[in-house]
């Protein structure tokens, strides 16, 4: 997995390339926490290039969303593929995140 960080106005966009799994979840977590430490409050994670998220990866997303909410910010998701979208629906995790089907819509939603 690799992470690419870009900024769009006050939104930090992190694009995940590869699988978000138990072995690399801490990398994403640290990246988002570093951005939050630097003052970022609006974070969008773009999964356009991610095919799979395991249960540990889901846990990190929820943990980061909570942390940003505590700081008065928000973490949103975009570009989940069909399998991931289904996973979020089946596990009711879609009720915990605002999920957009494109990066542009997600940026507009902040």
């Amino acid at each position, binding site marked *: 997995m690799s992470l690419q960080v870009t900024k769009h106005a006050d939104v930090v966009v992190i694009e995940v390339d590869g699988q978000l799994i*138990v072995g690399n979840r801490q990398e994403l977590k640290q990246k988002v926490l570093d951005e939050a430490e630097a003052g970022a409050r609006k974070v969008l994670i773009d999964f356009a290039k991610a095919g799979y998220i*395991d*249960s*540990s990866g*889901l*846990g*990190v997303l*929820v*943990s980061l969303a909570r942390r940003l909410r505590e700081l008065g910010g928000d973490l949103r998701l975009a570009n989940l593929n069909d399998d991931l979208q289904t*996973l979020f629906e*089946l*596990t*009711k*995790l879609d*009720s*915990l995140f605002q999920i957009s089907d494109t990066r542009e819509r997600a940026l507009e939603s902040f």
Partner: protein
Amino acid sequence: MADLARVLAAFGEAYGCGATLWLQPALDAPLEVAATAGGDVTPPTGPHLADDDTIRSRETALGRQLVARVPGRTRAWLGLGPVADDDAEPRRWMRVLIPVLAQLLQGQWEASRATDELAERYEEINLLYSISEILGRTVTLEEAARTILLEVAETVGAEYGALFVHDAGPGLLRPVTALRLKGAPAALPIPTDDPVSVTARVFRTRAALLVNAGVLESEYEAPFRAGAMLTVPIVWTTPDGGIPLGVVCLSGRRGGAAFTAGDEKLVAAVGSQIGTAIQNARLVRASIDQERLASEMRLAHDLQMRLLPDARVVAPDATCAARVEAADGVGGDFYHLFPLGPGRTGVLIGDVSSHGYRAALIMALVMSAAAIHAQTTADPAETVQALLATVEEELRETEMFLSLCYAVVDRAKGVLRWTNTGHPHAFVIGAEGEAVRLEATDPPLGLGPEGLHAASRPWGAHDLLVMFTDGVSDARDAKGRALGEARVLEVLRARRREVPSRIVDGVFALVEGHMGRMRPHDDQAVVALRTA
């Protein structure tokens, strides 16, 4: 010296002239008679000891004597006499005799040097052999370090020293043993990036360093440094070069003599042996730890399997089969079964969002709490809510969450009620093979807001309840392709009329066939229950 005496004796007999050879063991030392065949043996002095090839004459108690330096590494002078005033002949004899003696002395010098070198090498070879023996007998360097340091220090004549081993985590060179100055404090760990310490510098550069007294003095080395210090890296030699593992420091050479290049070479050889020993010890330790861990994991796995109930516990109200395969010996997938009174059966499947020890501990906690709470209420939402209260703190502290589905089948009333916290794979397979998903009522435990919900649907006499975890549908083949939920459902539909044990076996046969020789990357659990 016997050869020299024989040559001089032969010369004396042949020419009727006395001859004496003097040697000077060291510069400015008095001359000593090495061999004589008559003539005055009083050593020449003053101008007669000039370091050139001039033949000089001097007066002695026995008459005039010719004296000349014998060239070569050995400081030697030859005296011939007594000679007559016309000494042209004796001078010619002297020019013949001197090269012969020079050759003999050179031969003796080389033989003596070879003996010294052999003695020196013997000492070195003996040291290396001793250290090999010491290292071969011990598993940990700590046990051998002091003996090794003492042996090396003794061989190179050092009074003080220390042996450091690299601790990569904090980036320190930790002293394993030290020969300290009297009253000095214990040696401290040295940061590998310390700019002054010779020890740190040698570790970084992997090159031995000999520093003179007063040069690059550091408080880190003060406890074991007196004057010049020889510092050599401990390196584990690999095909790609070497990996630095530590440093040996030696100081306070007896008699104040300087360390030599030979000392450096010797300590470097010892350092290389110590490096190999450190690496071997680490591998042995890792192997022992791994074996111990594997043994503990086997025990933990057995223990965990014993926590899972026997599927016959729900008889006669239901027939059930269940199986859990943990990915890491112990895992976070589990099931539980509860006979809840006439005609009612509780079935729980859960998946802690990780596997390994921590997930297994959460699983054990949930298992024991569920056994209590399931008996206190017939409402699955209330049972799961009570469960959440029990494990909420652990889930928060460990950043784990728990997806589970708890279903209560009421055969008498023909109703199935469930609470599903983010568990995607819970189904009722109907008599005609239709698969109805028991939708999630809430996000996984530990992630969602408070207040859980329950749902219900009719339960038919020929319905089959099947739950499995994502380790089953996400099982990967050698090319990384997931099995997929649809293929699991195909097997369930095809085997829906078989007994639950054959249904569970069928699912695992499918999973194993798909994975081939691949090891599961996640825990796998399947539960099948029917009430007919």
